[in-house]
């Protein structure tokens, strides 16, 4: 692991250039907040770049901008999609949805629970949306839940009542079930115990070995050392 940029001959998958994000809060005295400025980053296939920096440095915001969850204020977010570069800041919503379906995955810290949908189908959902048969998707979902040590008796239940750690594992399974070439991870292991963290680390190492490019946030040093190929330091923007 090196802290500086290294030459990499693998295929670039994500390119951020001059990326900036500001919020204009119209109902809070028209407050203007700069959270990201002049971010340049290239992410290659098989790389796992971990964002580092103190709380408030904009790490989660950067992931959200890349995913299109936040709009970009300045600069470009180029993603290799179907072999071509697509600038997500200029893409139509339908294009962004297609990129999310097939190219760009995102695992947040918290599972967004859908009422009445059992854990098995919460996990299988993205694979069905990507075109797989329900049975095939459920098989894959079972395999992932088993590997992540989610007890089988819970699979038929909606995860709303699960513990934080169980929900997080369901969320990871949901995020990994489609093998997308680009993966954004926002502290996916925050509430997991050591054993389950090991499983997640293995899953991520397998994904990297298969060529997945990962951009993530991990506060846990051990996890970071195991999965990161490079750190990307970030700092809080000075308040003007």
């Amino acid at each position, binding site marked *: 692991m090196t802290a500086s940029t290294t030459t990499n001959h693998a295929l670039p998958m994500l390119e951020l250039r001059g990326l900036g994000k500001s919020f204009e809060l*119209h109902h809070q005295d028209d407050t203007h907040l700069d959270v990201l400025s002049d971010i340049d980053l290239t992410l290659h296939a098989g790389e796992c770049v971990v964002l580092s920096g103190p709380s408030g440095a904009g790490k989660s915001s950067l992931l959200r901008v890349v995913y299109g*969850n936040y709009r970009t204020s300045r600069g470009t977010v180029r993603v290799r999609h179907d072999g071509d570069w697509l600038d997500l800041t200029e893409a139509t919503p339908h294009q962004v949805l297609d990129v999310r379906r097939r190219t760009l995955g995102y695992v947040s810290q918290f599972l967004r629970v859908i*009422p009445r949908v059992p854990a098995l189908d919460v996990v299988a959902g993205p694979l069905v949306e990507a075109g797989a048969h329900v049975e095939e998707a459920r098989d894959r979902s079972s395999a992932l839940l088993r590997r992540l040590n989610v007890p089988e008796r819970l699979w038929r239940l909606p995860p709303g009542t699960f513990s934080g750690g169980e929900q997080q594992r369901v969320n990871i399974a949901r995020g990994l079930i489609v093998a997308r070439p680009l993966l954004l991870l926002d502290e996916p292991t925050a509430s997991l115990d050591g054993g389950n963290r090991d499983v997640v680390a293995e899953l991520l190492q397998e994904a990297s070995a298969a060529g997945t490019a990962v951009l993530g946030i991990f506060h846990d040093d051990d996890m970071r050392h195991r999965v990161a190929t490079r750190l990307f330091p970030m700092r809080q923007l000075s308040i003007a």
Partner: protein
Amino acid sequence: MSALLQVRGLSHHYGQRVGCQDVSFDLHPGELLCIVGESGSGKSTLLKTVAAQLTASSGSVRYHQRDDSWLDLNELDEAGRRRLAREEWGFVTQNPRDGLRLNVSAGANVAERLMAKGMRNYGQLRAIAKGWLERVEIDPARVDDAPTSFSGGMQQRLQIARTLVTQPRLVFMDEPTAGLDVSVQARILDLLRRLVNELGLAAVMVTHDLAVARLLAARTMVMQGGRVVETGLTDQILDDPQHPYTQLLVSSVLTT
């Protein structure tokens, strides 16, 4: 992917008053689009104008037919519009009593659109009706009961069955869960989510509830004063609202 519906510069005026003004959007097959905004913002007017229940004051709605040709709704006569509404589209009203026929049985309500399309075999109609009651979680034994004996949530599920039985390609929904208990609402939303996925329906849904939009729709349009003030991915609109009105709307939601 090609659009199923193309709306361009659509307006409907009630005399001098603006119902909706200069609205454009594309809807793709299999996609659910939510229209959000407060009461009086023009959501329902827009929905009814797109669905050709109200006449457009200006602008156009084009529908992509199964044979790959485009149909311009302005050029369609009343009979053509009725045929489209009956055979290709569905409309779910906020109050199920507006969308149901209250003086005939639940089974007859479900079967009506099939009969309108020419199906006459009684046994077959009854079997399909029972199948659909089950699908919307109503006991098929109640096939002969009048909808007036159903609860509000059951009536809404019956209306959904009645609308979807002919497998329309496009469904319009006007606040289908407003006025129902939260638990009943969750059941109907889950049902809609499942049916939309299973049947590959495209749908336009009006709601004032942002949580409903988040749950069901990949894309959302925000309306204020008859105009669309913001449009985009639902998660983007809710997590990073740009327009002052959307920011107000999002910040006014109570979180539990």
